[in-house]
């Protein structure tokens, strides 16, 4: 808990150093927490009504509930629940991410789950789950109300304190649900915040999402109740004997028997309390998402120089706080479509001097984002194409080139005929760079960083400090994965390739022998293969993990350029038109080539109802569609005038395809 409390302070410190804008995020999260606290009495009242429900005594039911709602124990429970909501909200602020971390193998996922930070998270959620369940059991009352109850021992007749198993059952269920919430949070990327394709006011959006949240919490609670009941059936008695010295209250049915568990009222109360628990947490997450993703309007330019930091061009270039960059890009996309007056500000010239600073800054930032994506895609394709060749030297090379080598090992068919021996060394260099650029390492260390964006801007040296810092233990352990996977993938005809390669590099013959032995040993272990085998599509998803930014950049650029056809009085945009067009066409070629890779164009499975947001799985398709629409937007607006724009012949050919609507 101490760690979570430090979350906002860290953010505040960053504000002092960086920009005022982070206050936006803090205020928004504070508002969302406040709303979740305000909604707590309502959900508690509903919970009380449902938990005390009796069909045949409606009047008694209502009167009991009203008296219970004003009781002091309920007020105390509410205070405890407020504390829980507060901590949940702080965790949301601390853990939320705009760029999901996508593990590329089950081992990486396991590493994320076992990461110390995640362990603390799980521990806190277990505690909070127990707290909520304690409140719930106190509220339900009856046989659930206390942990110890006085009982009379059978032989001596004296009164001692016995353990109330019903209460314990609910408490343990709370801990279990807390852990499963924390675990599913990692697996389903619960803390990934995605932006909606349309803008809505907060209240209608909340209202629209509420049924989904209720449904999710009910389903999740039923699943958890089932799992927990099974767990308790097998291990309940062992746990009680190990941990608790109190004697069980013997007059009741023991709960780890079938008859004890198949008690309808018990299961009903378990699932109702579980629903209440999940609903409280999900509601906090939902409110946080709604508040954080709300559009924020930045001024395009300011008359005062001290406000210049808050203007759109400056914030776009921001790299410290990713969320502000995202909000700025969203604002750019919105203003380019909806606001004539702000577009005119973008196209305007600076007052003394007459330079189009606004447009230059905005277009430069968008184009650098897009060309950075192009670089990333090209590097990935190079890595794929250079498959197999790097492998022969891999025993001596850095961990990371093996990594690149591995992620490629699924596509040897494609690459083998393409490569000539002369290109071995260049391709291996390319492979090393691509390993740097491929954001396969799940970044769990910083809440605000985009692992993708920052890491990929520059091509770093292989021995740069970055290697030591970010490579967490679970990534180091990926070493064997590569070998095992490459032998494992003999169905992909990698083995004959090895046979060709080995004599070439006779110097590394010895290490190869060793590695071959290790490989063959590991490959036989099914568990290891299972853990280290690469998840299909994961590399594609990871490449496009932050593509929402690129989509907005594309929308913003294309709409601004299209609007400039009639609104740009000074010809500000048309000077950059050739570079924008070539940037888009180059990106389109890279994206087209990427979609020819295996697994790149396969659609992910639809997830059933869950709070985790899975929009990141389809971002690459969204990016491709947005890119084509952007080019069409420009070509349809400019039409034949594009022939006057100075671009290279191949690009002109490609654009001609768009002009004839043949894409």
């Amino acid at each position, binding site marked *: 808990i101490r760690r979570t409390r430090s979350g906002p302070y860290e953010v505040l410190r960053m504000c002092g150093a960086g920009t005022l804008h982070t206050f936006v995020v803090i205020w928004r999260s504070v508002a969302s927490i406040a709303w979740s606290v305000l909604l707590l009495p309502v959900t508690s009242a509903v919970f009380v009504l449902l938990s005390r429900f009796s069909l045949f005594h409606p009047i008694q039911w209502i009167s009991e509930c009203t008296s219970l709602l004003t009781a002091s124990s309920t007020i105390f429970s509410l205070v405890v629940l407020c504390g829980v909501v507060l901590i949940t909200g702080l965790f949301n602020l601390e853990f939320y991410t705009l760029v999901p971390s996508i593990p590329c193998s089950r081992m990486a996922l396991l590493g994320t789950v076992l990461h110390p930070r995640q362990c603390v998270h799980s521990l806190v959620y277990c505690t909070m789950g127990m707290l909520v369940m304690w409140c719930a059991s106190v509220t339900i009352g009856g046989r659930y109300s206390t942990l110890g109850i006085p009982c009379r021992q059978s032989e001596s007749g004296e009164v001692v304190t016995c353990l109330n198993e019903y209460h314990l059952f609910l408490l343990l269920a709370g801990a279990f649900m807390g852990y499963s919430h924390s675990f599913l949070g990692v697996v389903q990327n619960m803390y990934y915040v995605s932006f*909606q394709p349309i803008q809505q006011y907060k209240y*209608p959006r909340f209202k629209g999402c509420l049924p989904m949240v209720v449904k999710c919490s009910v389903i999740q609670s039923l699943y958890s109740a089932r799992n927990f009941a099974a767990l308790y059936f097998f291990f309940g008695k062992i746990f009680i004997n190990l941990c608790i010295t109190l004697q069980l209250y013997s007059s009741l049915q023991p709960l780890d028997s079938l008859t004890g568990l198949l008690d309808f009222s018990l299961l009903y109360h378990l699932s109702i309390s579980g629903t209440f628990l999940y609903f409280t947490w999900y509601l906090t997450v939902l409110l946080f998402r709604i508040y954080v993703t709300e559009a924020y309007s930045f001024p395009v330019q300011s008359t005062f120089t001290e406000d210049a930091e808050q203007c759109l061009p400056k914030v776009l270039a921001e790299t410290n706080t990713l969320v502000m960059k995202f909000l700025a890009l969203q604002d750019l996309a919105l203003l380019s479509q909806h606001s004539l007056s702000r577009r005119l500000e973008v196209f305007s010239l600076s007052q003394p001097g007459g330079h189009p600073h606004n447009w230059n800054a905005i277009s430069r930032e968008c184009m650098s984002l897009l060309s950075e994506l192009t670089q990333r895609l090209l590097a990935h394709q190079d890595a794929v194409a250079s498959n197999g060749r790097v492998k022969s030297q891999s025993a001596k090379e850095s961990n990371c080139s093996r990594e690149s080598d591995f992620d490629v090992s699924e596509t040897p068919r494609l690459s083998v005929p393409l490569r000539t021996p002369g290109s071995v060394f260049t391709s291996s260099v390319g492979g090393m760079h691509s390993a740097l650029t491929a954001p396969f390492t799940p970044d769990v260390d910083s809440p605000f960083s985009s692992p993708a964006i920052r890491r990929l801007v520059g091509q770093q040296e292989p021995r740069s400090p970055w290697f030591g810092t970010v490579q967490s233990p679970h990534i180091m352990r990926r070493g064997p994965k590569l070998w095992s996977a490459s032998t494992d993938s003999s169905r992909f005809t990698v083995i004959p390739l090895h046979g060709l390669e080995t004599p070439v590099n006779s110097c590394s013959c010895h290490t190869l022998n060793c590695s071959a032995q290790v490989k063959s040993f590991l490959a036989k272990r099914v568990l290891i293969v299972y853990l280290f085998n690469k998840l299909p599509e994961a590399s594609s998803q990871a490449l496009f993990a932050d593509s929402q930014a690129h989509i907005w950049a594309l929308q913003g650029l294309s709409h601004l350029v299209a609007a400039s056809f009639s609104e740009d009085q000074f010809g500000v945009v048309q000077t950059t038109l050739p570079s924008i067009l070539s940037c888009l066409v180059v990106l389109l070629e890279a994206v087209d080539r990427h979609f020819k890779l295996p697994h790149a164009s396969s659609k992910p499975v639809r997830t059933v109802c869950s709070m985790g947001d899975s929009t990141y799985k389809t971002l690459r398709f969204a990016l491709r569609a947005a890119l084509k629409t952007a080019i069409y937007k420009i070509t*349809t607006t400019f039409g034949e005038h594009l022939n006057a724009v100075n671009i290279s012949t191949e690009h002109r050919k490609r654009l001609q395809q768009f002009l004839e609507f043949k894409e």
Partner: protein
Amino acid sequence: MCSLGVFPAPVTAAQTLFERNNELLSALHPGEHSQACDLPSPQFTRDTLKGHSRPESSSRSVFLDQRDTLWMRSAGAWRDAGLYGLLDEITNSAEEVPRFLAVGSACVLALLRWASSFHGSLFPHLTLSSDEMVAEFSQMLDWSDSALRSFAWHPHTDKFAVALLDDSIKIYKSNSSPTPTLKHRCQRSVCALQWKPLCGSALAVACQSCLLIWHVDPASLSTRPSSGCAQVLSHPGHSPITSIAWSPTGSLLVSASPVDTSMMVWDVAAESAVPLQRVGGGGVTYLSWSPDGSRLLAATPSALFRVWETRMWTCERWPCLKGSCQSACWSPDGGCLLLSMQGERVIYALTFSDLTGINNTYSSPVTACQLLLILKGFSSLSALLNISVGGEVCSLSWDPRGERLAVLLKGRADNHPSVIAVFKTRSSPVFELLPCGFVMGEAGAEPRFMQFHPHFQHGALLTVCWSDGRISHVPFYFSSAGLLGGDSPQQALASNTTNPSSNKLYTEQIS
């Protein structure tokens, strides 16, 4: 107020070919060649197209009745017809189940039926079957009987898609390239088609159970694109889909179903949907996006329609009218909306004042919903043929330049056919409607559906689907009064703001 008697009545009931010199000329005029433009005009007859004769569930009657165990029958009933079927099955096999179960299920069933009939009495359209609902709310007149089910022009090229009775879709291009036929397992009872704007290939199809997005590569020579080219979008409770609308920027797709009170805003590439729910009205039947993308009309089966603004997605309710909104069309600048109501011979106009979007307020002040036109009376077309026309307004279509308005008037019994009346329109300085004439088909053919070509060079081109399965094109040759040669609203705007002679790129002027 306008009487159809004002219309210039054609002398004979022959097929109208085109308009020239403010005159609609028919095939019988001497010296006119039969085909005015080189667009394909295919004809489909009902005989050549086999629809599926009966629904799947009725195939049971072919087989011998066999008694399964109660469990098997219950499972089957649950799978086929859900909760209703299960309860029905239990109630019917009362001798095999415990008495309390049979009585309980009978009670629950009765309760459910009562509730649904109550719901149905509030919203009568909910009692219709899925096919009847599609036929009721489709823009195609007489949908269930027609060989053509739906039609859509591509917004940028000379290419159109036709949905046919046998649930296939054919795509025709202007040149004699192969015509791809699209078939898919889920493609049943196609109610609406729309091409994605700013895209060469994507076609959205509203089907009975789902929404299909076909990606038909324009460069491909294949005549049967595989069903792998289609994306299936579905949402529980959101079927049958009767109307779809792409946003003019091509980024969003909205779909509507008469049984679902929420309309879905799809991000098609990401296959994710945001439901926008408003309970009143009991469903959404018709959608139309304004050409500038700022507003969206959503009609409900009740006497209520909504106009959404698409920036923050808030809506205005318009409950004041008598019948449900049947059809609507936007003016090219998005400032005026024409509506027709069910059972009325009236066109209403809705004008929106904040066209420019300079002010950042999200409210959209609507000045008034005014009665634009009452199409009174019957015009007797020809004394010899003894035919008279006039009736309820079923469909409206406005050409992209805003110069011609086509109105499809529903017919009645004999000698009272459906007919298309065409008006000349002018929006500045004051809104004006002048009668232009009737568009006639070949003898015995009635119009079922019409749509203007989105970018015809020499005026306007109306494409009409006839009851005999023919698709014909009627060009209207005229020179634009206000605007010079802009074929999209934006270009029109551009040529308005700058002098057309200097309408060149900055870089062009330098070089």
